[in-house]
């Protein structure tokens, strides 16, 4: 498979804005000493205390699937053997830089979350999956791990640069020393994961939220956020030609307050390359809330946002993203290997006006749900949302008119 450049490159530089929770006081640096002087020593609640803390705070996975963390924790604790922990720092989505931001500025919040959970579970090993395409993150995490003195043993692994390298089963393959590609999951990894044992695998931000919750307590944790959703979330704000910005916002913040005013009134890709398109009318009526966004059919995913410039066309952008995603298939599953390039070609036909949308729809239905991982489904979600949200722009393209007036390429 030939490499296709990502329409949003993996950042070599990111801007991390101070925030109300995880990113408070980021200027104090990433060292363990600075971390301890801010938060004090890590207490280690037992499993039932930890579960009630996490349930009270309603922490959900921040890697994209938003699965309740307490459910996973309970499942991984219900086996007969000690579970493994996995901290997923792969961040193989180029449009996301929040895990990188945590690694660079707040690595000990991530490690405290895992250390407290390991203590509660009696887990002896915590594995860290690190991003092959972000060497500065690998260095920062290794430096942080070297500062720790925990009972749990930290093991680091550096993954591939591929888009699907961070998928949970691909991460478990990496841990097992096999190619860092997804395989079919017959059971949730919390039941049968690394070496067939229960494995609690979560995204770095999820672990950092758990860490902060244990360190500051339920009350201080819930001091930000809205009643139904305590706490904060990290967002990566992308705008072509500018350095990606990682911000932390309290749940319940209106999008109009989360996004810079100069970006208002535009078109937005919410949730990264497997995400969903929104226009300003949709976004302006919503708050940064995992629940509201899911209800509005605009899931936050891992919190990556791409705000297009006025003269950037969503049809062209989607075609570029799908071309990239097709080339990023791990090539293991026939329908994904064959179907995504066909889908990308059909969408390119719509973009140039060479073809109508029928073929895109047919191929989208053909690849959906037919792979070992959600890569085909995520790609189809993006394409469907383009047709739903920007129907007029799509229709114009089929008659060789770009409503946005974008000159090719993106």
């Amino acid at each position, binding site marked *: 498979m030939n490499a296709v450049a990502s329409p949003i490159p993996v950042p070599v530089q990111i801007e991390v804005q101070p925030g109300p929770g995880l990113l408070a006081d980021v200027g104090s640096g990433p060292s363990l000493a600075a971390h301890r002087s801010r938060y004090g020593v890590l207490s280690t609640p037992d499993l039932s205390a930890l579960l009630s803390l996490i349930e009270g705070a309603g922490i959900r996975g921040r890697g994209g699937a938003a699965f309740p963390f307490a459910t996973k924790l309970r499942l991984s604790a219900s086996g007969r053997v000690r579970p493994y922990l996995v901290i997923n720092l792969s961040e193989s989505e180029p449009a996301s830089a929040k895990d990188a931001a945590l690694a660079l500025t707040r690595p000990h919040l991530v490690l405290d979350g895992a250390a407290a959970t390991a203590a509660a579970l009696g887990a002896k090993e915590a594995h860290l999956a690190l991003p092959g395409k972000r060497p500065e993150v690998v260095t920062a995490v290794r430096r942080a791990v070297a500062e720790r003195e925990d009972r749990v043993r930290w093991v680091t692994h550096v993954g591939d640069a591929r888009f699907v390298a961070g998928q949970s089963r691909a991460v478990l393959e990496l841990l097992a020393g096999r190619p860092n*590609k997804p395989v*079919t999951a017959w059971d949730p990894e919390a039941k049968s994961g690394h070496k067939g044992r229960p494995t609690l695998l979560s995204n770095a931000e999820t672990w950092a939220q758990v860490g902060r919750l244990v360190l500051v307590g339920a009350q201080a944790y819930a001091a930000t956020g809205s009643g139904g959703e305590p706490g904060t979330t990290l967002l990566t704000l992308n705008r072509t030609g500018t350095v990606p910005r990682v911000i932390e916002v309290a749940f319940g913040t209106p999008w109009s307050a989360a996004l810079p005013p100069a970006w208002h009134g535009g078109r937005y890709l919410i949730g990264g390359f497997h995400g969903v398109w929104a226009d300003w009318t949709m976004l302006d009526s919503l708050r940064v809330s995992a629940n509201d966004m899911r209800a509005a059919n605009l899931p936050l995913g891992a919190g990556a946002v791409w705000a297009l410039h006025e003269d950037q066309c969503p049809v062209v952008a989607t075609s570029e993203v799908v071309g990239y995603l097709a080339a990023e298939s791990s090539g*293991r599953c*026939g329908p994904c290997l*064959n179907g995504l390039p066909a889908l990308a070609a059909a969408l390119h036909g719509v973009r140039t006006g060479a073809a109508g949308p029928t073929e895109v729809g047919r191929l989208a239905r*053909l690849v959906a749900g*037919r*792979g*070992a991982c959600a890569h085909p489904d995520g790609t189809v979600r993006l394409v469907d949302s383009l047709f739903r949200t920007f129907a007029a722009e799509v229709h114009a393209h089929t008659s060789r008119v770009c409503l946005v007036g974008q000159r090719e390429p993106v």
Partner: protein
Amino acid sequence: MSRRRVHQLKVDWPNCTGRGVCHGVLPELIDLDPWGYPIITGPVTEELLPLAREAVRMCPQLALRLTSTP
């Protein structure tokens, strides 16, 4: 063994090489896509259960599974 058990054929995609032996055994429930990979068209009914088991047995890649949800 309640009568409400739903049986479903699932493909282990990375192992499936797509020549469609399964389709030959059970065309009623297994179509082929333009590239020769199986499309499971519905849940396995009681009448088709023996043939579904046969399709699982015949798959040269052991890439087909019969799952059931209570």
